[in-house]
């Protein structure tokens, strides 16, 4: 009777330590290699590119534009006129500020060029396009 209950208990509790070891390794892997980013206002998949330079630490104005042409500044979605006036306001504070455009890869390129022209008219000196490095290189 007693013997049976012990063997039952042993069966229900398999060795947990190897599992914990692997979970710890996975945790460390994700902590070190992953980069934690805040969720963005729009769902944007940047285009793949083999070129492009590292993003430096300079504080840029981030403009998002989704595949259907909706716009967002930093983390708030807004209309084009509002966005342009907000950009010109932050340019008054820092005239050398760059605008980093995060555009969707399936966006109509002409829409992007139109936005670039509008930003340039607002007084933006430098424009950057955010791209993503292909994973399998």
């Amino acid at each position, binding site marked *: 009777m007693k013997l049976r209950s012990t063997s039952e208990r042993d069966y229900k509790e398999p060795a*947990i*330590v190897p*599992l*914990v070891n692997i*979970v*710890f390794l*996975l*945790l460390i892997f*994700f*902590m070190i*290699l*992953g*980069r*934690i*980013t805040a969720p963005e206002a729009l769902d944007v998949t*940047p*285009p*793949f*590119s*083999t*070129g*492009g*330079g*590292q*993003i430096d630490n300079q504080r840029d104005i981030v403009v998002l534009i989704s595949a259907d042409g909706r716009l967002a500044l930093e983390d708030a979605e807004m209309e084009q006129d509002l966005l342009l006036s907000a950009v010109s306001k932050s340019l008054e504070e820092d005239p050398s500020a760059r605008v*980093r*455009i995060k*555009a*969707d*890869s*399936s*966006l*109509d*390129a*002409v829409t*992007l*060029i*139109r936005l*670039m*022209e509008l930003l*340039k*008219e607002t007084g933006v000196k*430098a*424009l*950057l*396009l*955010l*791209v*993503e*490095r292909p*994973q399998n290189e």
Partner: protein
Amino acid sequence: MESPTYTQLLARASNSAIRRRRPLVSLTPLVDVVFILLIFFMLASSFSEQRAVALTTPGTAATAGESKAVLVRLKRNGAIDLNGEPITLNQLQARAADFIQTVGERRFLVQPDEGVELQGVVAVLDALHATGIQNISLIRK
């Protein structure tokens, strides 16, 4: 049923201690927390490496010097032409390099048609950047 004596209990306890070697601190709460941390990092982290490409556009006003520039047009069906000559994306890099060697450094204008996806334009920009061309502008009709 008779209750076990003290010695019997002691023997049973030491017996099970040898057999199972239970840790003083239970592992289960730790595992729970580690699992939650793991799920958090798996969902919150991204592995993509983001970079930036400098973009320029002459704007609506500037037209000066455009006669000397090289025009790369992108058609909606994916065709590319370099100064009116049809070309593939693979040829573009070599042809652009030739162009620079024979005619000298020029300004390149990339003009996508309405409906061309950004990915195609970025591919052309990559090919031109790889040739060493720095002066690239995006224009529209």
